[in-house]
């Protein structure tokens, strides 16, 4: 069980850095066709920002910000976006993920429709990867009788 860090430097650095890391992750996702990156890499960076929050501020505060239920919603929504775009292409008489068929729906020409739908798919992949990373880290950093240990640990810290 990871408890709240008592070091003010670590906590302040994390608090200042986390928004910029998330902004950079969004840049990696959106800019994946010009520079290295894309959905998976951006998702990993987004997950790293949340893991940084978990490491520095402890389980309890991280769970308040982003609970396990919210995380499982996120990875379902990511898969839904990916599969939804793919199935929408089938609905418009194309193959799975045949983006060109969405041109009529988005009311742009075929090249722009491909670009936009690939961006949508990348956003879905990024959400799923972020949620799965954080979920794995939650699960491996939490022992079985975690709740009781955490309470004892917090009590001993406040007594100190």
């Amino acid at each position, binding site marked *: 069980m990871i408890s709240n860090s008592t070091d003010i430097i670590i906590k302040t650095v994390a608090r200042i850095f986390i928004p910029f890391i998330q902004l950079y992750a969004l840049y*990696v996702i959106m800019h994946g066709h010009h520079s290295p990156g894309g959905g998976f890499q951006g998702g990993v*960076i987004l997950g*790293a920002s949340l893991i940084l929050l978990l490491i520095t501020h402890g389980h309890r505060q991280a769970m308040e910000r982003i609970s396990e239920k919210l995380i499982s919603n996120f990875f379902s929504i990511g898969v839904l976006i990916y599969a939804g775009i793919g199935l929408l292409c089938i609905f418009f008489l194309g193959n799975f993920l045949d983006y060109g068929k969405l041109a009529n729906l988005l009311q742009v020409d075929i090249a722009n429709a491909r670009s936009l739908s690939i961006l949508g798919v990348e956003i879905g992949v990024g959400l799923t990867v972020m949620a799965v990373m954080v979920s794995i880290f939650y699960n491996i950093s939490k022992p079985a009788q975690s709740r009781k240990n955490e309470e004892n640990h917090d009590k001993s810290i406040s007594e100190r």
Partner: protein
Amino acid sequence: MVNFLYGIGFGLCFLVLFVLYRGIFGPGVFNRIAAISAIGTKTLVLLLIMGFIYNRAEMFIDISIVYALLNFVGTLAAAKYLEMEK
């Protein structure tokens, strides 16, 4: 200019060996963590030099920012793990 960058790059690669010695044989865990962190920093500079040699600095800057971030988070995670071990 390219020769200068090659010189700096090979110099850094040579310096990594000294840090690697501390990482392998260093007494205690904290020397090893510091050594890994230093190797990560050197790798970051090497990536940037590589970017300037290939004339694609803007691409390699993106990679090196991510490398720095993951190095920071990794060092912090290792330190936290050792704190929990006690």
